[in-house]
């Protein structure tokens, strides 16, 4: 059951910056083909923040890595689908063409700031190398650009920091430097793979605020990969919930948080501790994410689902993503009128209203 592109709706909408369609990724392993990403469709519009949420191993990082084609091949291979960036299919690019996209059009920041910087080079060297490469400037000029981008991410005394080594800095600073590095070439899309997971809460807030400010200034799109719903609620415009290789629900952040439709999403929300509510135990989703080598037949969530009630449909037919209400896609047989809903590609141009007074200007 593949969706057929609806050309009429595409004409109405502005072009998405990045459009992933039916992406299928497989890994050749000793125990056969494992498919960590199946039929993932996702659109990201300029200036938008799209959050991809899910537990460890649900395929969110693989999706992100496959956009930049960073997955080692073999063992990984693309089984189908397309990743269109500004109209061009990145999957058809040669390695040399990809090198021009990486860092310049699409930049990425990683989860672990402590190990993402090369210990043998100074900060300035590392940022300048990519700048020299992509912006075709001299080393001296690249260092000035590096200095400016360090200033942009709120690092004091950037001129001196350029000459320092990564080990001389704290985790929060290193993540700022990673962001500065990613931003130094003014990418149109920033993929942030759990950018705050390794940081403590106060630094986390600073980093996310920084990303929001830079997004407002430059209008770049952000693909935010996280498992933290609090981060999603504060930063995302559109949310895609992934479970066991598929997107199970996607909607605007307000819609998703107000009306979660998929039992998995609902379970996720129930397992957030709430302020002011006393309960003996925090509610959890029973069971664990199924092993990608042995996904259950039918709905992949049925082994842990509280809505199934022995429905044979759930154990036999896998529900695919449908537009269950305008602007809200979900994949569950038990969502109202699921069978009658149209199968359309998720395309949400939504941008949240930002309370501009809440966030100050970036320090110059």
């Amino acid at each position, binding site marked *: 059951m593949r969706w057929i592109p609806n050309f009429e709706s595409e004409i109405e909408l502005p072009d998405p910056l990045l459009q992933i369609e039916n992406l299928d990724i497989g890994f050749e392993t000793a125990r056969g083909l494992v498919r960590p990403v199946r039929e993932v469709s996702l659109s990201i519009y300029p200036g938008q923040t799209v959050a991809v949420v899910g537990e460890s191993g649900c395929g969110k990082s693989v999706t992100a890595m496959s956009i930049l084609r960073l997955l080692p091949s073999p063992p990984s291979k693309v089984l189908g689908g397309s990743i269109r960036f500004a109209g061009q299919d990145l999957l058809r690019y040669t390695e040399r063409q990809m*090198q021009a996209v990486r860092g310049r059009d699409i930049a990425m920041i990683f989860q672990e700031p402590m190990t*993402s910087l090369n210990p043998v080079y100074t900060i300035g060297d590392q940022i300048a190398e990519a700048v020299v490469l992509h912006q075709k400037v001299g080393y001296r000029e690249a260092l000035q650009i590096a200095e400016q981008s360090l200033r942009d991410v709120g690092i004091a005394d950037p001129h001196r920091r350029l000459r320092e080594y990564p080990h001389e800095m704290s985790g929060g600073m290193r993540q700022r430097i990673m962001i500065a590095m990613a931003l130094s070439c003014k990418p149109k899309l920033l993929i942030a793979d759990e950018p705050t997971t390794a940081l403590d809460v106060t630094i986390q807030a600073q980093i996310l605020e920084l990303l929001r400010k830079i997004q407002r200034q430059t209008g770049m799109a952000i693909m935010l990969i996280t498992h933290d719903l609090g981060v999603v609620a504060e930063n995302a415009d559109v949310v895609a919930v992934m479970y066991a290789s598929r997107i199970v629900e996607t909607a605007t952040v307000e819609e998703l948080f107000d009306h979660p439709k998929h039992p998995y999403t609902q379970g996720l929300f129930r397992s957030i501790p709430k302020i002011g509510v006393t309960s003996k135990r925090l509610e959890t989703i029973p069971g664990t994410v199924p092993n990608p080598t042995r996904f259950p037949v039918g709905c992949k969530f049925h082994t842990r689902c509280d809505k199934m009630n022995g429905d044979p449909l759930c154990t036999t037919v896998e529900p695919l993503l449908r537009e269950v209400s305008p602007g809200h896609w979900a994949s569950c047989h038990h969502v109202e009128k699921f069978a009658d809903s149209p199968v359309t590609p998720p395309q949400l141009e939504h941008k949240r209203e930002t309370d501009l007074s809440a966030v100050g200007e970036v320090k110059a």
Partner: protein
Amino acid sequence: MSEMAVTPIEKSSPEARDELPATSRPWLEQIWLDTIGRATAKLGLVWIAIITAVAVFAPFIANSFPILAKIDGRWSSPLLHYITPADVTLIAVSAIALALWPFKRVGFRVKCLSIAGSAVIISIVTLIVIHPPKAEVFDRYRTLAKEGRLEKAIYAPIPYSANDRLRDQFKVDNPHPRAPSREHLAGTNPNGADVLSHLIHACRIAMAVGFISTSISMLIGVIIGGLMGYYASWVDLLGMRLVEIFGSMPTMFLLIMFVAAFPDYRSIYLIMAIIGVVSWTGDARFVRAEFLKLRHQDFVQAAIASGLPLRSVLFRHILPNALAPLLVSASFGIAGAILLESTLSFLGLGIPLGEASWGQLLTDAVGSGGSFKWWLAIYPGLAIFLTVLAYNLIGEAIRDALDPKLRKRD
């Protein structure tokens, strides 16, 4: 907690920088400090420094020609007259290296490049400019002295060249080799050459063999090992078979065969090249293991993700982080190469006759004379032993410094 919340991202006072614990230096620098912090490594380095200095200044330490001589009332420098382009290059390059060393502002890479560049330029210039006389007539100044024309002469501390045979200096009833005496502190060899001078001039061969053959093997090892480690899969499979093939070649017998098969091509540089070409397998294994480990590191992924070309990812981002274990194998490799050359020379298959080598002196200890000449065994043996030991001590110290289990917590 409240303090944490308001802490600016940064404390940048110079005082704060000085308080950094010792472990937070760049990694290679830390390894280096850990290495030279060990007494054994210090001993090794001191010995190698002595050998290097002796090798560089060999013609000024042991030379049959006077440094300054007054002949028929005119001052001249016979030593400088006979100096070779290699001597001048060595001295000039080491002078530049020593002069550059104290400058902290100059980066390590810049230092290395400028030293290598000046070495090339100086060697070309000296080859063009300096033409020492082909024939070295060692007896000339001795004859002049006998005739009384040599009014004043200042000699090097050891007034004998390594290939000065001193044929006419002793009578037939007192033949060479002679045991150590006041004239010849380490005796003479069967040809009548001074052993101490021989030892001093042989330092060059030993150092050159060690460094050149190890550089060749490192170069091959890094390239092949790097490609194996980075690409893994079939490249690795193929490379490892190549490593096994070369690893199964007995270097010693290959060298003996080569020398036996091509006696006309016998040259020390050929021997260095063969040692290098055969012994890269260890380096390749080290580099492969490091690259396999490093290629999945976050900073390598980040380098790829920022669009850097493969060349930069491999050699700028992975290689410097893989260098430290290579240093261990390099220092053992130098020791091995020195030993190999000495063995070859001992067997009479090494460097061409007439050039100075420690192994060649050893041959003479049990040579044609019949009886054992202890001074021809002890001194060169000691030189080989100490040099190989020094390199092994340094290699050992680097290995210990690299081992996190052995590193002191501070």
